[in-house]
């Protein structure tokens, strides 16, 4: 049984998240901003009676802002240390099976990607970058402290 991967698009790039880490995929409707929080914290949203901390993946990767003005955004819900987060992505595509263990990417990636990368996995759809959910949630530590 190979690991299942959720294929999502962040900043126009197709990447994979470990499907085991993702609880569900939701469409966020309302977003309540959290003033003075780290830039990658887009705000709070409610999923049923749970409060979700919404993470803007593009900002977490320092690749610009996700445009949230049109209202509904797709997001992957993950749980980390008892807190629930919604990761805003451009698009949630599919679930695929990993065909290999993560392998190191030897070419130089963008700085943001480098930080969240867990390596490259082979799938039926070709190689994909496996992204570490915890690193996405943590964002840029230095900036969060500022």
């Amino acid at each position, binding site marked *: 049984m190979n690991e299942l991967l959720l294929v999502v698009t962040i900043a126009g790039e197709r990447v994979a998240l470990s499907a085991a880490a993702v609880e569900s995929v939701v469409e966020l409707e309302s977003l309540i901003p959290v003033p003075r929080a780290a830039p*990658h914290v887009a705000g709070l949203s409610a999923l049923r*009676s749970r*409060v979700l901390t919404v993470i803007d993946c593009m900002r977490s990767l320092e690749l610009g802002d996700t445009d949230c003005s049109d209202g509904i955004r797709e997001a992957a819900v993950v749980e980390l240390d008892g807190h629930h987060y919604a990761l805003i992505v451009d698009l949630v595509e599919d679930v695929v099976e990993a065909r290999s263990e993560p392998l190191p990417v030897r070419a130089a990636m963008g700085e943001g990607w480098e930080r969240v990368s867990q390596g490259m996995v082979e799938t039926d759809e070709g190689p994909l970058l496996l992204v570490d959910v915890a690193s996405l949630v943590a964002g840029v530590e230095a900036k*969060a402290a500022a």
Partner: protein
Amino acid sequence: MDDLIADFVAECREMLEALGGEIVAWEAQPDDRARLDSIFRFVHTVKGNCGFFDFPRLEALSHAAEDALADVRANRRHADPALVSAVLAIIDRISEMVAAIEAGEEMPGGDDMALIHALEPGAEGVAAPVAAAVVDGTIKSSSAPRTIRLSVELLDRVMSTVSDMVLARNELARRLRESESDVPVDGAFERLSSIIAEMRDAITRTRMQRIENLFVGLPRMVRDLCAELGKQVLVDIEGGDVELDREMIEMIRDPLTHIIRNAVDHGIEKPAERLKAGKREIGVLAVSARQSGNQILIDIHDDGRGIDGKKVVEKALSNGVISKEDATQLSHRDQLALIFEAGLSTAQAVTAISGRGVGMDVVRSNIERIGGIVEVDSKVGEGTRMTLRVPLTLTIIPALTVSIAGQHFAIPRSAIEEIVRANGESVTLEHLGGAGVATIRGRRVPEVSLATILGLDSTVDEQDRRLIVLRPAGGDVYALSVDRIHDHEELVVKPAAPAVMATGLYAGTTLADDGSPILLMDPAGIAAVGGVKLEVQERTARIAEGPTAAISKATPVLLFRSLDGGRRALRLAVVDRIEEVATSNIKKAAGQLRVQLGESILPLAGATASEIAGDKVRLFRLNDGSHEIGYAFAEVVDFATIEHDIIHADQPGEVSGVSLISGEPAELVDAHWLFANHVGAMPQASEQMICRIPRDDTWMQNMLRPLVEAAGYRVVSDESEDKADLAIAAKGEKVAAAAHTIFLRSEPEPAGKKDESIYRYDRAGLLMALKSVAGARK
């Protein structure tokens, strides 16, 4: 197998906890068969299980204890202190072993044979106990209700499902309202609603635990302390059936233990000393719990040597905790409160029991962290009383919702001291080098704008904002300006994600009724981020305690439904707090209804004897600064303000007039009349003179002003330039020139023949004086 062991460990732990109190009680009364039986049952169960699990050491220990106890049960042997100590030692060893099994560690070392030998009749080596501790009848043996063990996680899941259900119901309710209403459907929905409400209540209760679980270990702890210190202490426990959130019980366990250790170690004297001081040889340590509103009060009272305020101050001076000038101005209470400052221990010598670095400052900060308060009161030579006030649960916090630029935030009510308008009558707002300074009734308070702190653009002009005067736990006050104030709500607070907490501004998140998230602000955090310097508690310039003055035309009132169904309003400032009392505490005595609240008996208004029904009555506790009365009511409707004119009643009575409040007429309760009728007759010869100028004289603003207005006067503040026909002041107070002056005194009898002042509850006299001034002008 692992599951079975886990069950065995859990069962042992539960029994061990319950046993702590039993054993000590058994020692005091060796003939008490019921207690003996329950101890016997414990060792017997352990023995049985050990054989099954192959724990030979545990088995040998429990077997030996069982044998000894069986002898006692069969009257072959008498339970003497030596035997009790030996059994205790064995139970301690068993509990150590159980803990080791649970943690998956090696069994603790030590020679079990010595313990087993100590059980034999006539054995020596185990010290005879010095102290006797007795628990009153509240801790009963063996009649526990049937229970099962559940994981808290499962309960939380059920709880969150119920919350979802409530949200779903709300949505359904909205849809139903929008569509054509169908009576049977509405009826069915109502029923569903009430079932859901009931269920939510029950689920919330599952998180509650009797505080007994916290108290049950105390007698044993005190007994051991006594043995160590050579003291004799009787523990008196009361109120073990009060229920408290499970997590809360864990949070107060350490502070409570610390306070009790202190009481036994430093408070209660050695028997010889006590006899010399003319007290009984045995000290009494009373621990009691009771519920008051949404708080739990835990009292720890000892009859020991008490705390000498002067010594505390000396110590604080020598440790540099306070300055010399401050020291001279401290009240007795403030002096005692110094024990909660870091770096103070009044004990002469540091002992092994207490005073080992973990001080009262840690106790205070632990209690304050969960939104509680700890207070101390003490009389030298008579004893010390510590009171812990903690909220009922960690998760439900009364809060005020405010908004900035359309976004809602919540502020915990416990930190709010008062709310004023930025452009109110006695409030001015200035900027010094960019820093905000608000002057509220002559008091300068640092001001910060929530909009600035949050980096939001406020659409409301600075002068139109509201100022919330906040006092973060243990700190000084500051004013926070917000755009709008919305509602008072009880919010279910959940911790926020680390990335949100990292801002230092928030205490958690919560969901509003419509299901959208709200951030709960942390008042201390706002101050820190806003750059407000919160000095160590400002001691000399405290705000006068008690009701807040009404400072503008928009008088805040509490809207409620009275027992006879009327919609009424009381000025918020005269309401001290809301209490719930058992109907049995209300008695007709000395010509009027009176209610017993704790140790005081107050006159009760707002009800006739026939209207008091049911088990419980809710009442407002009204306070005019020197007297209190109770006012019974059915339910609180809302907080509101009087913004419309008041139509005054023709006849003086409980209701002074009618005004539109929140769009509907409401009767205004005349607090002056209430006090005049219910406490006016009481003699108060030893009453202190009250000298305040009318502008910030709370009593005059809230009680007298309606009366004067009803008599046809326009009331202006004493700083007003208008030429006054009449000035009213407390007796002995200086007043600006006016055509007439009425002085009020607070004692019924005039001080002498030349005293022309009027007793402040002499309603007829006051009205007469008001009329005669009005008449003289015509």
